[in-house]
């Protein structure tokens, strides 16, 4: 597909939030960061700071609205606790604002931060008085008839905090318009949620706020959080000036969000080779604020258990508050944690039974028409699986990866599966407006945003296909809440399926209106082409001027009941250096069912990107936090991540099975391939050298330690003896 907006994107126009920030004069906002938590901070020289040259405002917890909110960008009313104020009286994570400052220049800001004196009154006890045991949520859901107790310890895995590492940091700019409305330019995945959450935080009506979402230079869920926006909004309101803020990379690590760390345990009950029950237990750390904690925790089960047909599912868990950075939405949203546990467990069970791990899975796989909401006994038939038979996809991947071929020395292959949704089931809404302009261009207004995943191209393709015109004649106008195209935003792999459906409906209306217009215009003899011999430009003109004035406007609304599940199958091929435990990934073969891939190149890009993010999660990425809550990996030098040069060869096998509900038959593609990477690597390592690492990331040292323990390597055992 042609990338028609290339010229625009390379032009000098402001495109990203930092472009706006760079070009607009205004005050710079900064955070006086907490260095001790949990504690009640007190700025002892507040008046001195306020009197410093170039300082326009210094605000502390006592001066902000008392209303509590959540920074999790989800539809109202969020399943998240309202446990945060713009500045909290108790600081709970390192770097949390003790005060917000608006300064004339960066130098003024730095001087003010340097001079600030903060005293801390340390707190013992729970992080939030409302949760005396720090447990935010606890549940036990058992579905289906019990066939007896599930014996054995099962498989216990621990998964770490991961940083989004999106290229573009959080950045926002706020301004009060002459009429008193607040305008926010921001890099966000969720412009309408930003508007509602900021309105709540500032205690003003949502329509008093306009959010202009810029293109997003990388999100991965980090910008489904409303972090910086309330800060600049508050300062703009206090000073009446333009206020702007951009987080540094260090602040991204401290004030941004992480993937949830957790401990998961899976056990299963078998009758021969038939699965009788599966039990998943999760203990999830949400950080000091609740955010997405509960929804992410539940997705650890919802994205893994339905894969395997089973008469009984048990899901127990809890979400706990803890010091350290705040956890949040992150590409995969519970899937990677769940898959690490469940897919490792299947491998272990297969090995114990002496079976091929692929064969064991194939025997229990969900089939077309099987329920996806297996933990909801009442509505479990509302969403069912539709798509390519998963066993066929597995077989294609196994063949491509030469699963049956003999392995080289210290080489191994591992298999894992994952699934995702296409938008949050039963909780999505998108409006798209398609308007024919007088020059014949179609403007498509949407509240979804393009964060590099190609939302523009996909929406353009869908509209072009539905109307029957060239994509060149279509302009996508995303993310401005004043343009009345309400949308829950770009997350949960929803844009193609949900916003795309709304765009398709709007475009279909436009097509009908155009045909109606053709019908009343004078008949043309050379009636070739779709519009009875008229060009789209002529129709556009006729819609505004002359005897038949009737503007062509389509408004599509999508509030889907369905959320079809895309599926990914991954085979990893690794080599393990048996002396030092270092794992080299030789190849990844990913088979993916995304329904009909509207833009195969973009889908391939999404899959490769997801695999890269999954590989970092599997092998090295970890936000290290000290016992006191300090983030120890505060820079890209300390936080280990993989570069393009470390990517193994990747083979992507795309199926093409149109989904009956998806626009042009599409499901979703953005997240599904992150989750299977870590378990596939762990399983491949076991295949190679017979050790199992259940603790992410799988560093060389952990593999080496396991090998030493299992006495696999003579040399390492010798060394251990020497050390003893």
């Amino acid at each position, binding site marked *: 597909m042609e990338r028609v907006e290339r010229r625009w994107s390379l032009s000098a126009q402001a495109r990203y939030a930092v472009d706006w920030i760079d070009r607009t004069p205004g005050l710079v906002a900064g955070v006086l960061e907490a260095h001790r938590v949990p504690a009640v901070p007190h700025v002892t020289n507040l008046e001195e700071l306020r009197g410093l040259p170039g300082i326009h405002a210094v605000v502390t917890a006592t001066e902000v609205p008392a209303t509590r909110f959540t920074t999790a960008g989800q539809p109202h009313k969020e399943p998240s606790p309202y446990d945060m104020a713009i500045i909290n009286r108790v600081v709970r994570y390192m770097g949390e604002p003790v005060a917000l400052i608006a300064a004339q220049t960066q130098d003024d800001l730095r001087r003010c931060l340097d001079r600030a004196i903060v005293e801390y009154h340390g707190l013992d006890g729970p992080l939030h008085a409302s949760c005396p045991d720090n447990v935010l949520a606890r549940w036990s859901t058992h579905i289906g008839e019990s066939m007896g107790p599930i014996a054995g310890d099962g498989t216990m895995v621990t998964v770490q905090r991961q940083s989004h590492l999106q290229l573009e940091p959080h950045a926002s700019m706020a301004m009060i318009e002459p009429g008193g409305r607040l305008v926010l330019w921001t890099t966000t995945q969720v412009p309408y949620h930003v508007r509602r959450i900021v309105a709540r935080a500032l205690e003003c009506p949502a329509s008093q706020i306009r959010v202009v979402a810029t293109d997003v230079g990388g999100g991965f869920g980090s910008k489904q959080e409303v972090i910086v926006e309330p800060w600049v909004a508050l300062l703009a309101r206090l000073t009446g000036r333009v206020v702007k803020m951009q987080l540094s*990379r*260090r602040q991204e690590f401290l004030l941004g969000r992480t993937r949830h760390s957790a401990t998961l345990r899976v056990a299963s009950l078998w009758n021969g080779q038939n699965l009788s029950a599966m039990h998943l237990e999760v203990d999830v750390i949400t950080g000091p604020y609740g955010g997405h904690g509960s929804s992410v925790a539940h997705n650890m089960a919802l994205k893994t258990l339905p894969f395997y047909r089973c008469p009984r599912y048990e899901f127990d868990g809890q979400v706990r508050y803890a010091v350290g950075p705040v956890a949040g939405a992150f590409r995969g949203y519970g899937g990677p944690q769940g898959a690490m546990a469940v897919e490792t467990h299947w491998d272990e069970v297969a090995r114990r039974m002496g079976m091929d791990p692929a064969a064991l899975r194939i025997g229990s796989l969900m089939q077309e028409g099987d329920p996806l909401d297996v933990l909801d006994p009442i509505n479990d038939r509302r969403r069912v699986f539709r798509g390519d038979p998963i066993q066929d996809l597995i077989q294609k991947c196994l063949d491509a990866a030469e699963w049956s071929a003999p392995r080289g020395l210290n080489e191994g292959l591992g298999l894992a599966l994952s699934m995702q949704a296409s938008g949050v089931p039963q909780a999505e809404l998108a409006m798209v407006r398609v308007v024919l302009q007088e020059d014949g261009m179609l403007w498509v207004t949407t509240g979804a945003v393009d964060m590099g995943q190609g939302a523009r191209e996909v929406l353009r393709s869908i509209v072009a296909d539905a109307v029957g015109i060239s994509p060149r004649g279509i302009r996508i106008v995303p993310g401005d809440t004043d343009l009345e195209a309400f949308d829950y935003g770009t997350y949960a792999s929803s844009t193609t399926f949900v916003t795309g459906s709304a765009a398709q409906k709007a475009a279909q209306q436009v097509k009908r209106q155009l045909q109606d217009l053709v019908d009343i215009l004078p008949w043309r003899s050379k009636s070739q082409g779709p519009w009875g011999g008229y060009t789209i430009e002529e129709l556009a003109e006729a819609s505004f001027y002359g005897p038949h004035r009737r503007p062509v406007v389509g408004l599509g609304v999508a509030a889907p009941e369905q959320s079809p599940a895309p599926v990914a199958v991954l085979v990893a091929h690794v080599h393990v250096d048996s002396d030092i435990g270092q794992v080299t990934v030789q190849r990844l073969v990913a088979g993916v069912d995304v329904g009909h891939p509207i833009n195969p190149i973009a889908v391939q890009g999404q899959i490769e990107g997801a695999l890269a993010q999954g590989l970092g999660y599997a092998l*090295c990425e970890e936000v290290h936090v000290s016992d006191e809550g300090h983030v120890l990996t505060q820079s890209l030098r300390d936080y*280990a*991540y*993989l*570069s393009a040069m470390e990517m193994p060869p990747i083979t992507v096998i795309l199926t093409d099975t149109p989904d009956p509900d998806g626009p042009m038959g599409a499901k979703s593609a953005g997240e599904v391939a992150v989750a299977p990477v870590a378990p596939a690597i762990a399983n491949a390592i076991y295949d190679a050298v017979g050790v199992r690492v259940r603790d992410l990331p799988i560093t*060389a*040292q952990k593999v080496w330690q396991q090998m030493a323990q299992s006495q696999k390597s003579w040399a*390492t055992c010798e060394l251990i003896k020497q050390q003893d």
Partner: protein
Amino acid sequence: MQWIEASTLDELQSALVQGYRVIGGGTGLLGDENPVEKVVDIRRFPDANQIVEYPSRWQLGPVVTLTHLQAWAKNHVPGLADGLNRLGTPVLRNLATVAGRLANREPTSDLYPMMRLLGTEVLVMSREDPQPRWMLLEYEGPLYGANRVWLALRIPRSTKRRRMVFEKITKARLNGSIVNGAVSWQQSVANGQIHVQMVISGVFEIPCHLSVCSKPLDLATKIRAQWQAFQQMGWVPIDDFRASAAYRAHVAGVVLERLLKTQSGFFESSLEEA
């Protein structure tokens, strides 16, 4: 930030006195959380970005980049070219300077072990002493500090009887270096003795130097010698959160063993040639 240029020793001296820091490629100095107020750029110094060949040495200007050194080393010191290929990314190597990498002392530095084994010397001028002096590249000592500037580096010319290899083990390529090791061999024409030198960085706060000299150099002896030397080091190991000291020490041993093995056939043949 104030950014000035200097192209004479006097200008440079006056910049140092005013507290300016020398900037190379800026990849370390201009980091996110490392605000510098004043930098002095020495690109305009004569031959600043040149590698000049003299009969007994190769001389590098202060802003020669890692990419430039790598291209040059392919024909002169292949082991160095291979090693540089593993340092950062091409983008980083295009920007970062040899002097900047070495002057930016870090225990996990990749380049130090290699340049040290090649016998690199540095031409240093300080704020207090405007007279530039050559000094051997060492990890500690008077080469370093905000009031110092490296005007040039020189590497003695290698003979055919000298070889160097480098190995690097990391958590991820761009960061989290666990251990770097470089080994060089040199054979004396006079008596055929082989001198093996090794520098390992990343395990201890200060890179550790080992050497063995014998004839013939039996592999088992070599490994035992360096391993024992290594075990006896009195320095405090880096025990950070990425990899434990015990694991680093183990990896260092493996790295040394492998480096020695890779080259075990080399000297026999080169002696015959001679």
